[in-house]
């Protein structure tokens, strides 16, 4: 007998462990998009007039826009009239204590490894759980309120802190920004809101867990985080969805504002359903994330681990407006089977002595296509600005692809720019070397991939670094024969 060649391209069935459906009665509006639908969503949320106006302006603007085609991804036309723009599990309205939350929902989050009981596993993390279009629970509210921190669903923030929402909404991502952000501005249903007052260091990790459950439903959430002078917050989002044959649209917007010396650390572990091994189904993840370092010496740091979604289109960015401000982007993006990712960042240097760091790790397996697209712009007034970019790609097999599109625009000659890039492949000889030392092919891939991603993983909060490593293992399961 002989041992078969290690078939790096032969992809076994991948296991998506969050693919179950919760059987829960929900209230949805009919599919389709119109001014009436926008009004209906606003009415359901008992929103003030100014917010409805903002939505309608966005909707009317959206009608004049064209879907972007520049990304290095391919998909069939999206029928925006076939999407349900609002779906919510039936339960008592308004802010809810955990005891009032439908047990089926609690069970769902339990199964996803995000228990909503405050004494449970995530005892050091406050969670806002968003299910389809609405937030169903937010934990540790009382404890956070003691510190003056507001952490609640977006809808609740509109009711309770309208002046804050009105002041900051759209200040980083205006409703005219881009096709998907504009659509989001018109129909966003919920999301998280977080406000850290002056000088407060948030005592725990804040996180939002997004779950799409209902079929044919789009999720359009909006997250707004404001850190006042000298404030600090570390925030994490997680995402999953059931296995469905149809593609589902997720078009979210995240806005971050950091004032003088404030720091926001925003981490994402994105595990939307990626589609099956033939490329059927999966989430279209078209997301606009942007942070503004508005104050002097402020810092915004994005860390993302993107393992899910059929298509990922997102560029978490930093506008470095305040002098001495710092922007960071650490990313691991994995594409397996027929997944496509076009992701990267924009670092816009406006203030003096601004610094940015970009570390992007792309992993492609199967027929996956992975694109890094990044822009570093040094404005005229951005004296002594610095950027360091590193883009590494790792290939498993010979049917996948890695692409890098770095854009650099420098308008100030005092800037220092560094760009490094590499592409490598997990070779059969490497896998055999591991095997010859007693380790399995799966161990080999896991160890090589984890080594490759080390610089990014160490940026994640402890609790989630371990999760992210495991997730990566699952995502690449079966990517060597």
């Amino acid at each position, binding site marked *: *007998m*002989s*041992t*078969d*060649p*290690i078939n790096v391209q032969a992809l076994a069935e991948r296991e998506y462990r969050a693919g179950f459906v919760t059987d829960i009665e929900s209230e949805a509006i009919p599919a389709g998009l119109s001014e009436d639908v926008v009004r209906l969503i606003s009415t359901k949320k008992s929103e003030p007039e100014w917010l409805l106006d903002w939505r309608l302006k966005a909707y009317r603007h959206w009608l004049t826009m064209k879907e972007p085609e520049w990304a290095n991804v391919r998909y069939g036309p999206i029928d925006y009239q076939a999407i349900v723009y609002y779906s919510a599990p039936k339960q008592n309205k308004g802010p809810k204590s955990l005891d009032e939350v439908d047990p089926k929902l609690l069970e769902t989050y339990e199964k996803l490894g995000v228990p909503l009981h405050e004494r449970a596993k995530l005892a050091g993390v406050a969670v806002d759980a968003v299910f389809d279009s609405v937030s169903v629970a937010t934990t540790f509210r009382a404890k956070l309120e003691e510190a003056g921190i507001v952490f609640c669903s977006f809808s609740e923030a509109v009711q309770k802190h309208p002046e804050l929402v009105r002041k900051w909404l759209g200040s980083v991502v205006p409703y005219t920004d881009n096709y998907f952000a504009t659509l989001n501005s018109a129909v966003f249903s919920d999301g998280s809101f977080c406000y850290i007052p002056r000088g407060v260091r948030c005592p725990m990790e804040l996180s939002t867990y997004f779950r799409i459950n209902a079929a044919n439903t789009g999720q359009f959430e909006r997250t707004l985080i404001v850190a006042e002078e000298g404030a600090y917050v570390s925030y994490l989002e997680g995402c999953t969805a059931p296995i469905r044959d149809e593609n589902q649209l997720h078009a979210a917007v995240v806005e971050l504002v950091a004032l003088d010396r404030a720091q926001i650390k925003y981490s994402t572990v994105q595990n939307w359903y990626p589609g099956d091994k033939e490329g059927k189904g999966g989430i279209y993840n078209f997301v606009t994330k942007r942070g503004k370092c508005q104050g002097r010496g402020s810092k915004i740091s994005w860390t993302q681990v993107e393992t899910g979604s059929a298509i990922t289109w997102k560029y978490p960015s930093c506008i470095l407006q305040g002098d001495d401000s710092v922007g960071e982007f650490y990313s691991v993006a994995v594409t397996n089977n027929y997944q496509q990712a076009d992701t990267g960042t924009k670092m816009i240097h406006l203030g003096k002595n601004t610094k940015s760091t970009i570390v992007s790790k792309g992993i492609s397996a199967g027929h996956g296509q992975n694109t890094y697209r990044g822009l570093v712009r040094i404005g005229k007034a951005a004296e002594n600005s610095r950027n360091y970019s590193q883009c590494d790609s790792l290939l498993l097999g010979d049917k996948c692809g890695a692409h890098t599109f770095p854009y650099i625009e420098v308008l100030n000659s005092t800037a220092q720019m560094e760009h490094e890039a590499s592409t*490598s492949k997990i*070779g*059969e*000889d*490497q896998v*055999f*070397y*591991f*095997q*010859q*030392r*007693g*380790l*399995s*092919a799966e*161990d080999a891939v896991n*160890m*090589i991939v*984890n*080594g*490759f991603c*080390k610089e990014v993983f160490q940026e994640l909060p402890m609790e989630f670094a371990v999760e992210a490593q495991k997730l990566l293992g699952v995502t690449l399961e079966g990517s060597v024969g």
Partner: protein
Amino acid sequence: MAERRGVGRAEPAMLEVCNLHASVGGNTILRGVDLTVKAGEVHAIMGPNGSGKSTLAHVLAGRPGYEVTGGHVLYKGRDLLVLAPEERAREGVFLAFQYPVEIPGVSNVYFLKAALNSIRKHRGEPELDAMDFLSLVKDKAKLVDIEESLVKRPVNEGFSGGEKKRNEIFQMAILDPALAILDETDSGLDIDALRVVAGGVNQLRSPERAMVLVTHYQRLLDYIVPDFVHVLLDGRIVRSGGKELAEELEARGYEWLQPAPAPGR
């Protein structure tokens, strides 16, 4: 030698290769190799380039792409060829590579700890914790004079040729195999490095361990003195003897062992 063979009779040989045929990419390379190696013995396999030495080493380790087309191999009396490569390793078969591959991002020490623990797990032994493992590393690093900085660096990344070879022997010392196959361990080594590597190998000789040295030159055998020398030519072992055979090869080359050309040509 005769007495030694007698002692081994009670137990199966460490390695018994019988009439082994193998091909790579459709080309037949091994054409009936017979070889018996007992515990405690060191065998040298010599032969010109392309004679099948490295193929034999890789077939024994189970490298993908090497197809066995005939014959059988027993390891400690059990069929070796049915085992996956990692199972062979866990059972105690070690291959020191001629060209050790670089593994960026994975530190040598992390890699070795995972390897050792998978082998220990297979043997039903408890896994070593970080402390015990590091003291083992310190101990074995002396054997081949490997610097601590090399141990912490990614596996073989940026190592010189000599450092890579030393690292192979260092790994062998940590993993403590029953059967070690050393594929051209001397190639690319200067004389000082060769002395260090050979010294490490010599210290790892033991009555429980068998070694097969695959080598092109007799030079290595000045430092690691084999019990037996075999000449592999055209996929077969054409001559076996003691260490004096190696000296004869050094003096006369391989030419005189070539089978006579067919008449009329």
